[in-house]
């Protein structure tokens, strides 16, 4: 079978001590249109390969690098997704990255690369047009992510596209990320630790193949149509100028900016770390992914102006700025630089440090425990000192290196109340007490505390009727927002580019599939059903791992403590509001209200029976 848009193959690699065994399998035609690619087909592969007996750091847990039919085409914003069982949550994980690796995987002849097993010693994989080699990486072990890529580029040539993990991944920190093209990260959930557990420092890919398009002339016209939409969009200009950092302005204006471990929703020092200050004080140039008309990354000067840093993105400013009480944009850029070098997720890292700071200020930790660090909020030197200690599991850093849930278990003394995570994954930069729908989005995101499935903050009221401080309408909005991203995440293209710059709708996405793959009859309605199917499939994976309704909850602080400031001042979300939202949400998804398990009727309706079989109660 050779469909346009696809390479047509899954590369299945088994690391076996000192050698590598591999085979290719054709994409399964009967599954393909049901799940398309990317997150959808990757979830299917994980479902098959990593059942409940496989632990995240077992050799059997695969790292799956998935692309989709839209990846590597002339459409801007190609991405790949790393899929695995997360060492942070023990659940389904998908973590996306831009850069050039996505296209290169396709050009090398594969849609998905599955990596299982374990190397006997530090190694890296070299993949080039059907040649797969396991090579010694002992000279790279211990090197920063940036240095590793630099060294490999010198050895392999600049055409090789490389995925690396940093020292945090080697040390099995469960929020270690993987990095590619120096400045792009699959940040969340610990893909780096899974690579580290395999003694796999890097994957280098070179490809010289191409991608056949069903209607290349039509796609070119469509590409120009998107550019015209971009010129007219409300937010494109801001997106290019500031990237995600503009969010500092909108989020702080509605009081949902995480501040001092989510104790507040506004930060008095926001003016010193917002997008305008970033642009004025440390900005050097724009940077974007291959072929993108809206380069949204910023290169900034690192500490002492010497190092070039990509970022900080909004989430980094929020979690390693206001959330640790630091009001110095140069310090935030320094933290970003450290996280990128050591290969840790800035969101989880900022959360776990903020948690330690609150423990310290409440007297649950003292300087004897913290290796002499004065962990009061706002102490930038202490934050900068802690990041390498976490990545290296050194001293007090090892207390924090397993994430905030584990840190709270270790510290105890009531600290669980303010350990900010959902299902073990630390929360990103949106305080849900100032936007209740965001609480539902966190509670129901399949990878845990995550903003990338739905972000119901500042949604225009013409799109949805919802209640920021109640429950009515929230479930429907969250479900629709989650579903809107699925066809893009199966593609895989940059959903931010499509939503903010091109203001693309489901019909536009269907048109892309029609012109790339040749599915003449694909419709927006079919993609809506696909979205429900993929979302429910990832839920089924988590159900098989033991997730139930009781796990779809929020940190006690969000449910029971009033927000002290901002428009949400004094509001308490409460269990009742969350439960009402969950009831409606499960009804809309066709999941059982009592258990949160997809019903047999839903499994049948979504044509998932042969994939998931029968689910436990």
């Amino acid at each position, binding site marked *: 079978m050779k469909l346009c848009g696809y390479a047509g193959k899954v590369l299945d690699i088994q690391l076996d001590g000192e050698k590598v065994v591999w085979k290719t399998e054709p994409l399964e035609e009967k599954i393909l249109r049901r799940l398309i690619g990317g997150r959808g087909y990757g979830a299917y592969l994980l479902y098959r390969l990593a059942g409940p007996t496989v632990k995240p750091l077992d050799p059997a847990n695969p790292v799956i690098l998935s692309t989709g039919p839209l990846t590597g085409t002339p459409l801007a914003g190609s991405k790949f997704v790393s899929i695995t069982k997360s060492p942070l949550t023990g659940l389904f994980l998908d973590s996306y990255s831009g850069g050039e690796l996505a296209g290169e995987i396709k050009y090398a002849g594969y849609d998905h690369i599955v990596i299982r097993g374990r190397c006997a010693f530090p190694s890296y994989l070299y993949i080039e047009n059907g040649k797969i080699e396991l090579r010694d990486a002992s000279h790279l072990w211990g090197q920063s992510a940036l240095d590793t890529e630099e060294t490999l580029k010198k050895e392999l040539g600049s055409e090789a596209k490389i995925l690396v993990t940093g020292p945090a991944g080697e040390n099995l920190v469960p929020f270690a990320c993987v990095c590619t093209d120096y400045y792009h990260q699959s940040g969340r959930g610990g893909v780096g630790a899974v690579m580290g557990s395999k003694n796999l420092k890097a994957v280098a890919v070179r490809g010289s193949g191409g991608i056949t398009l069903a209607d290349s002339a039509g796609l070119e016209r469509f590409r120009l149509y998107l550019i015209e939409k971009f010129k007219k969009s409300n*937010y494109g200009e*801001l997106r290019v*100028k500031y990237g995600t950092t*503009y969010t500092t302005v*909108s989020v702080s*204006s*509605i009081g949902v900016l995480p501040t001092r471990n989510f104790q507040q929703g506004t930060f008095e020092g926001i003016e010193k770390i917002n997008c305008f200050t970033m642009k004025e004080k440390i900005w050097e140039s724009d940077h974007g992914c291959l072929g993108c008309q809206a380069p949204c990354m910023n290169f900034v000067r690192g500490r002492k102006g010497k190092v070039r840093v990509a970022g900080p993105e909004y989430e980094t400013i*929020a979690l390693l700025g206001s959330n640790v009480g630091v009001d110095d944009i140069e310090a935030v850029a320094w933290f970003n630089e450290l996280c990128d070098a050591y290969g840790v997720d800035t969101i989880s890292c900022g959360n776990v440090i903020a948690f330690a700071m609150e423990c310290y200020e409440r007297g649950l930790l003292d300087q004897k425990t913290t290796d002499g660090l004065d962990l009061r909020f706002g102490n930038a030197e202490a934050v900068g000192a802690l990041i390498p200690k976490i990545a290296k599991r050194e001293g007090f850093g090892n207390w924090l290196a397993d994430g905030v849930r584990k840190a709270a278990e270790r510290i105890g003394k009531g600290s669980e109340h303010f350990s900010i995570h959902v299902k073990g994954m630390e929360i990103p930069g949106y305080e849900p007490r100032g936007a209740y729908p965001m609480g539902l989005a966190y509670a129901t995101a399949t990878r845990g505390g995550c903003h990338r499935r739905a972000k119901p903050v*500042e949604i225009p009221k013409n799109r949805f009727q919802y209640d920021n401080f109640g429950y009515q309408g929230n479930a429907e909005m969250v479900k629709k927002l989650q579903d809107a991203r699925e066809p893009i995440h199966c593609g895989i293209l940059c959903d931010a580019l499509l939503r*903010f710059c091109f203001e693309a709708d489901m019909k536009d996405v269907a048109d892309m599939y029609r012109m790339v793959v040749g599915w003449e009859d694909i419709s927006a309605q079919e993609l809506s059903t696909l979205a429900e199917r993929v979302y429910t499939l990832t839920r089924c994976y988590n159900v098989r791992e033991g997730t139930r309704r009781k796990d779809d909850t929020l940190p006690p602080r969000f449910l029971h403590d009033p927000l002290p400031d901002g428009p949400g001042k004094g509001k308490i979300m409460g269990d009742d509001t969350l439960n009402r939202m969950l009831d409606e949400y499960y009804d809309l998804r066709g999941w059982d209200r009592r258990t949160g398990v997809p019903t047999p009727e839903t499994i049948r309706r979504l044509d998932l029976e042969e994939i998931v079989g029968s689910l436990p109660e």
Partner: protein
Amino acid sequence: MGTLEGKDSGPRVTIRFLAPFRGRDNWSLEVPITPGEPLSSVFQRLEAGLCRELKEKVIDPPHPPFGVNVNGKRVVKDQFEQVRLTGSEQISILALLVGG
């Protein structure tokens, strides 16, 4: 920071544009007011080009992509007539983009 009407020492509000208006962003303007006047009338007194742009981006669309804050609190356009200014208010106009 610009001032709308020269050296007036009376009550005034600051309007900060945190999104592109008149071709630039992150700039502000001081506007003299009469205490008790509504927010809507302040917008109408801005120079013609700016006033037109505000109408296009904030006042006329049924669901504007830009928001208005007065002293850090969001004010929707239906409230522009009811919000009465006393002087010294900080008014921000910002894009509602949330794309972190």
